C-alpha cells in the first residue's frame, strides 16, 4: 500500500489523515483533525471521506463537539449563538464559515485553519470565541 492509499482525505479540513487498519469502505469515522463525521469511500486507489450529514445543523454540532473533545477545548456561554451564526453562514454563503469573519473560503470552514493551527493555545480562544482552552 502506498502512503497515499494509507490516508483518508477529509473534504472539510482538506487534509489527509491516517487510515486505521481494519477500517472498511462504508465505515463511519471521525476526522482526527477537524472532528467531521465521514463515511469511507475508496476512490481511484485512495480513500475519501464523505460528509455524513452535509449542510445540516447536526453536522456542525457534531463536528464542533468532536473537535473540542479531540483538542480538550471547552465552549463558553456564546456557544448557541455561534451555532446559530454558523447555520446563518451556511444558508447565506453555502457552508459553515467562521460567523465572525467575512471570509468564505474553505480554510475558514469551522474549525478554521488558524484554529486547527493552534490559535486557541496561543490566544486562549478561537477568533469567534467558540473554542476555549
Amino acid at each position, binding site marked *: 500500500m502506498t502512503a497515499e492509499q494509507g490516508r483518508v482525505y477529509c473534504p472539510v479540513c482538506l487534509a489527509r489523515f491516517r487510515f486505521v487498519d481494519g477500517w472498511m469502505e462504508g465505515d463511519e469515522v471521525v476526522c482526527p483533525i477537524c472532528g467531521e463525521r465521514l463515511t469511507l469511500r475508496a476512490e481511484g486507489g485512495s480513500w475519501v471521506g464523505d460528509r455524513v450529514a452535509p449542510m445540516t445543523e447536526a453536522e456542525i454540532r457534531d463536528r464542533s463537539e468532536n473537535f473540542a473533545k479531540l483538542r480538550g477545548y471547552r465552549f463558553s456561554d*456564546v456557544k448557541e*449563538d*455561534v451555532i*446559530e*451564526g*454558523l447555520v*446563518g*453562514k451556511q444558508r*447565506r*454563503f453555502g457552508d459553515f464559515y467562521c*460567523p*465572525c*469573519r*467575512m471570509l468564505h473560503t474553505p480554510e475558514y470552514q469551522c474549525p478554521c485553519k488558524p484554529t486547527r493551527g493552534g490559535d486557541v493555545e496561543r490566544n486562549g480562544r478561537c477568533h*469567534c*470565541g467558540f473554542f476555549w482552552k
Partner: protein
Amino acid sequence: MERKVKVYALSTCPYCKRTKRFLDEHKVPYEHTDVDMLDDDEAEVVLVEIEKITGRRSFPVVLIGSEVIVGHDEERLRKALGL
C-alpha cells in the same frame, strides 16, 4: 451634544449581537450596517473602509465620535458613551 454612534457588524456574529443589545438596553440611538447582508461590491467598499479605520477586518466595530472600539467591550462602550 450627543455623539453619532455607528456600528459595523455581521448578522451571524454573537459579539456583534451583544454590542447591539447593549446599546439597545441603554437606549443609545445608533446606525448600523450588517456587512454580510450587503451585495459583494458594497461589502468590499465597507470592508476596505473598516480596514482603513481599524487596521483589520474584525467585528463589531463601533464608532463613537472619534473613538473606535473593535470587539464587544462593554467597559469601553460605557466610558465612551458616558454611561
